């Protein structure tokens, strides 16, 4: 497991947050350090506090207790300085807009220009660079509404990296992506980490997404249950985090209870790193491989 350096990329210390009017805390005493260049997966059920944690890292929410620092700065400062990039779930963008993928990336690249300035060749070069990195040049001129789930996701990643952030937060990145797209996604985040040295936070309820590309996994269900290598995700840990109803929590993944019961030893080898592989000793089936638009 990686050791924390002097300045963690993301440092979350004793964070507690309760929404106004809510009976339960959304997050209770969560502490986590992410070292620069690390790929951390945050796995948890819907309503487990993943989105809250994302908002805290982005500085869109302030904790009731505890602190969040991004490379030593407050999330708000980090956001202002463009240290954090964000790839939201696809459903939140307006796909009916008459914009091409390139327009979407240019919008973010030119955001910090003065209103009197035109997006010139410097911005264009940066947009080209981001589109090349995510391998999206071939469809960058198409209207966003006509792109497949995987293609649109690459445009959104290009938009997030065009401002050259040090930390990239990806929220449910494989929702609506087919199996081939998920494989490409795993390769892409590996490349972002290796070539650009980015620190990646991948938030998902999908075990496969987390296990196929992350160095470390944090299991979150209001509190942090474990954070270690994906190999440490034993059925016992998962059952603890997700209680009894694992199949419904994982949504598009089916967990075989018999396999879970019989495989409590994490030391058995498995084919970690491939999108179709079972990251822990559970039998995982993708129910739908349809590429949703």
């Amino acid at each position, binding site marked *: 497991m990686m050791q924390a350096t002097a300045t963690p990329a993301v440092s979350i210390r004793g964070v507690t947050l309760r929404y106004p009017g809510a009976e339960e805390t959304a997050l209770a005493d969560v502490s986590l350090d992410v070292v620069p260049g690390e790929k951390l997966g945050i796995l948890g059920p819907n309503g487990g506090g993943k989105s809250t944690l994302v908002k805290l890292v982005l500085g869109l929410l302030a904790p009731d207790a505890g602190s969040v620092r991004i490379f030593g700065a407050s999330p708000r400062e980090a956001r202002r300085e*463009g240290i954090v990039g964000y790839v939201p779930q696809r459903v939140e963008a307006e796909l009916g807009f008459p914009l*091409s993928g390139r327009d979407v990336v240019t919008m973010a690249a030119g955001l910090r220009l003065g209103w009197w300035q035109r997006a010139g060749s410097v911005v264009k070069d940066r947009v080209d660079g981001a589109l090349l990195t995510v391998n999206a040049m071939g469809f960058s001129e198409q209207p966003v509404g006509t792109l497949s789930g995987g293609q649109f996701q690459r445009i959104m990643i290009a938009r997030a990296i065009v*401002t050259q952030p040090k930390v990239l937060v990806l929220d449910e990145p494989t929702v609506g992506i087919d199996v081939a797209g998920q494989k490409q996604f795993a390769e892409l985040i590996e490349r972002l980490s290796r070539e650009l040295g980015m620190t990646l936070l991948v938030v998902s309820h999908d075990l496969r997404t987390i296990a196929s590309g992350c160095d470390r996994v944090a299991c979150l269900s209001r509190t942090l249950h474990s954070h270690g290598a994906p190999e440490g995700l034993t059925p016992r840990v998962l059952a603890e985090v997700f209680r009894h109803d694992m199949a419904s929590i994982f949504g598009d993944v089916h967990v075989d209870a018999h396999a879970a019961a019989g495989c409590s030893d994490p030391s058995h080898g498995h084919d970690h790193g491939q999108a179709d592989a079972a990251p822990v000793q559970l039998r995982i089936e993708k129910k739908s491989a349809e590429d949703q638009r």
Partner: protein
Amino acid sequence: MMTLRTWEYLSGPSAWLFWPAIVTGVVVAGMCAWLSVIVVLKRLAFIGQGVSHAAFGGVGVAAMLGLFASTTATTSVSMGQFAVIAGFCLASALLIGKLSEKSGERATTDHADTAIGVILVGSMALGAVLLHVAQTRRMAAGVSWESVLFGQLLAVTWTDAAIAAGVTAVVSVALVVWRRPLMLTLFDRPVAEALGVRVKVMNLVLLALLAVATVSAMKLAGVVLATAMLTLPGAAALRWSRRMSAVMMLALVIGVMCVLGGVVLSFELDWPPGPAIVLVMVTVYFGARGTGARR
């Protein structure tokens, strides 16, 4: 000869009566056309409807303040009318926003629908009551129900034209200055927020622009038909192009041409100009539906 009457009106001795209306029509049509693209893309047509009907309440308030007491308005009175009605529209737009957000963490269509419905009927009722009271007190000689509801383009003065041009200039500058953060907020609010855009400010800017544009459009087409100018040019343009810059230019051309077409129709056939403009816009929209690509 069909075009003779238009030519006669615009070159004859009483041409000075019509030119303010035409200038106002063109500048307001251009401003509304740009905003109409946003209104259609963000499905704000019903909000526009709510805000434009709120103008009726604003007219009632202005009448009670004595701003419609005379049939001829001085420059300061015209500006006062605009300020009161625009202020009322803006307050209504903000109230719609507030009521919509109040129901939960995020506004849903249902909540917004209810809020708009309430503000729309409330403003209309308030306007009707206040106008009635103003009329019984003989304070409303300068306004008629018909002109408020369906517009009175040919009663537009050079002062009105100057106000419309000023508003159009302000709206255009705002759209140019805030084009990047505004467009990002409209396209993907969570990301805009994450990139440091003050999305609440952007929403307020949009509501304010819609409110002043609505009041300007009201002069041409009345509260009932003002929404047409804030919807139809954008809706038609989006059928013909999938590039934002082209859509904006197309909407501008459609808006201006429809206003001119409506004015010509009203001259030639002696139709009321506001409804004539709206009918031309509706025709162009259906033409675009028939010939353009499906969105």
